[in-house]
């Protein structure tokens, strides 16, 4: 579904990613792990079009997307969340999630809107309902009218997930969702991710902590200082000496 081929990214003289390959198969949870500064978030930003690669190609369903601007990437069905949550703090949770409907809100163009045509009103109601549905899916519907700025960290992550889902994506890039969550919140997150996959949406999970990854992911990639050093099922990765040295070695 998503093919990243020999991607490299330079910042000034510094090479953040070097000849990285990555394949995400439809309907799975693919995890991308690695120590801090391994370049995980860089890769996510490349895929989601925040900046273009120095070398290599990214293709999504056989379509080159490595020169797309972010909003185009979102329109073709790749949603994302942020490592440091980026909610629209001036809006309520529901409004935040409704923004997510933007890629498929085809009727909300300027003139129909200012003329207040029925189709626009209808669409607005659809969006509203769909957003509520997503909030239910993530089990945070009770927060709908709370100003997003006032939410605790953990719930902000969940709302971000709901917002990403509302774009009706085929693939979601989840960037370090477990960072700074307590066990309970992590549990909720795990439930949420599971229920997302059950709706047939593919997930690329970028994670720093092994625990969550080992529990839910089908396929794991390991990134270290800009190079892809291994990939395989969680079990294989757990045994892989390279990984233990490069990654867990740092942990313990």
């Amino acid at each position, binding site marked *: 579904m998503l093919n990243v081929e020999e991607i490299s990214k330079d910042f000034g003289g510094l090479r953040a990613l070097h000849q990285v390959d990555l394949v995400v198969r439809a309907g799975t949870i693919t995890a991308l792990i690695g120590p801090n500064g391994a370049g995980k978030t860089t890769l996510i930003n490349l895929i989601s079009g925040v900046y273009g690669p120095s070398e290599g190609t990214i293709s999504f369903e056989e379509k080159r997307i490595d020169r797309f601007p972010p909003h185009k990437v979102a329109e073709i069905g790749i949603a994302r969340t*942020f490592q440091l949550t980026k*909610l629209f*703090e001036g*809006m309520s949770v529901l409004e935040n999630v409704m923004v997510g409907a933007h890629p498929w809100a085809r009727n*909300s163009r300027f003139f129909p*809107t200012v*003329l207040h045509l029925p189709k626009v009103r209808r669409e607005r109601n659809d969006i509203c309902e769909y957003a509520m549905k997503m909030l239910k899916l993530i089990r945070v519907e009770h927060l709908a009218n709370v100003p997003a700025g006032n939410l605790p960290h953990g719930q902000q992550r969940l709302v971000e997930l709901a917002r990403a889902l509302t774009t009706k994506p085929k693939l979601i890039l989840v960037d370090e969702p477990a960072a700074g969550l307590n066990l309970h919140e992590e549990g909720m997150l795990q439930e949420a991710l599971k229920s997302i996959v059950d709706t047939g949406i593919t997930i690329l999970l970028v994670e720093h902590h092994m625990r969550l990854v080992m529990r839910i992911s089908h396929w794991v990639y390991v990134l270290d200082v800009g190079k892809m050093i291994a990939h395989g099922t969680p079990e294989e990765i757990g045994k892989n000496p390279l990984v233990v040295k490069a990654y867990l070695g740092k942990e313990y």
Partner: protein
Amino acid sequence: MVSRVKRDFIVLFVVLGMAAVLPLMVREIYLYLVRLIGIYAIMALGLNIFMGYCGQVNIGVAGFFCIGAYIPTVLQGKLGWHYLIAFPISAFVSLLVGWGMSWPLLRLRGHSMAIGTIAFAMAVYLLFERFPTITGGSDGTVVPAMTLFDQTMGNIFYYYLILVFFAVAFLICYFLANSQIGLALRAVRDNEEAAAAMGVDINHYKRLAWLVNGVLASIAGSLYAQQAGFINPDTFALSTNVLVLVMLCVGGPGTILGPVVGAAIMTILPYLLVKIQQYTLLMQGLVLFAVLRFLPDGVVGAISKRFRST
């Protein structure tokens, strides 16, 4: 949600209805004030879309105001075109100008954008001041009164003309604010990166807001010129930019009613202070200061907050 829209409409139409019968009851001076309020409100509404919702900075409204005021006047005076033809042309011109200026200006952020827009306004202002043969220069020029069915239109006509345009502008801004577009604009205001990740084309929406702002300001300008009967460049100098900003900020940026209330307050204030004219400027400053300091979301914002909390 729908029911809320319905209720808003009822209120809106009550207000408009009262405004519509006003001429029967009050004297010219009050109508004159209401006309000014209407014009400034149209301008502030547009600015609100760009600043209050899209979160950008524009201190150049007077540029569009100036274009909107001068082009119909010149077309009428020099070429003898009818106002109703010249009016839309000026709106279209400022659409084009706005489109052209959007390329340099919308790439800027924050304070650079502020000075960029100021530069735009000043350039337009000087353009109209320094070519006396066409525009009458610093002495200004008489605006030919509009004739319809070969009779000249009076204050009452302009009152209703402005009322109609105000209603239209208000509805446009209201629908924009309460639509998916409104959400997109606020998303751009709050966090551009996240907005883009949600499929919002940032530049497109910035430009949209900028153009709405510009065209509304230009329309306000055309109306202003007609009802004033005389214009000169000083009316469109820097102080006007500041005045409209003040109106927006006093009323409450990012609220539907803010611009209207702000326009009303800042227009009526000088007339309440007519006995102490030399303090007008000071008063404006103090009002702005007090609002910024103690009512972060302006008068309207504060009122609605009060309602939510109780």
